């Protein structure tokens, strides 16, 4: 396992170097081409995740509605929390008494697994520059599986 990691990292390193060289060669290559290449490389990997997100999102919205919560509640939770399981828990807690500390502790425990995801992604998110905050914020079960398991093709940057 370890040798594979080293090899993968080495391959990534050389990929980055040749990518930089490629960028210097083709200064004319517009940003749009780069974006399209990244999109066509990434989209197929994310289709199964999208199917999961769409149905989970609908389920969360229906659940919040069944609890008598207004539509902005699941919307705000999706934007700010972005973690499926805890959004269901928080939705049910929104119907109870106001206790933000209890909500904080519950959400931390439910999402404690992210700590392990973060430890696993420490090295990979090291040199991604200004994209790092968003990659860290958007790290959920699904994005972790993709970011961890997907080889980044040549000419496409991580993140």
């Amino acid at each position, binding site marked *: 396992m370890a040798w594979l990691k080293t090899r993968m990292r080495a391959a990534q390193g050389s990929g980055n170097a040749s990518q930089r060289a490629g960028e210097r060669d083709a200064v004319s290559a517009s940003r749009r081409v780069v974006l399209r290449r990244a999109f066509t490389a990434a989209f197929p*990997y994310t289709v199964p995740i999208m199917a999961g997100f769409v149905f989970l999102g609908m389920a969360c919205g229906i659940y919040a509605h069944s609890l008598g919560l207004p539509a902005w509640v699941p919307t705000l939770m999706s934007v700010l*929390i972005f973690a499926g399981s*805890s959004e269901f828990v928080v939705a049910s807690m*929104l119907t109870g008494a106001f206790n933000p500390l209890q909500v904080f502790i519950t959400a931390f425990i439910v999402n404690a697994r992210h700590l392990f995801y973060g430890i*696993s992604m420490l090295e990979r998110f090291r040199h991604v520059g200004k994209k790092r905050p968003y990659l*860290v*914020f958007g790290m959920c079960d699904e994005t972790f599986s993709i970011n*961890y398991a997907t080889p980044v093709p040549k000419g496409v940057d991580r993140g």
Partner: protein
Amino acid sequence: MTVLQQVATILAAAAATVLTRALPFAVFSSDKKTPRVVRYLGAALPPAVFGLLVVYCLRNVDVMGGSHGVPEFAAILGTAALHLWKRNMPVSIFGGTALYLVLLYALGLA
């Protein structure tokens, strides 16, 4: 709960969630070298997490009663076989899910 309290509740949950995501990156900042133990955990944990997720998925399967977990284990074997054959993640996910649903309907469980 008032609207303000609802917003505060959501913000509390969001803060806790952001903390679970950002804490490892904050503790092991990029200036210092990450400790060996932590780097080992980073390499060793993902396979463990994936294994754990399989166990978690099967936590409600009753091997002693009902359908004895036959559709679940048949679907897992089918998914694994499909993946070893095609090596295509979307094909494995949709194929495995379809197989599981067909088995559930065939056995009259859904």
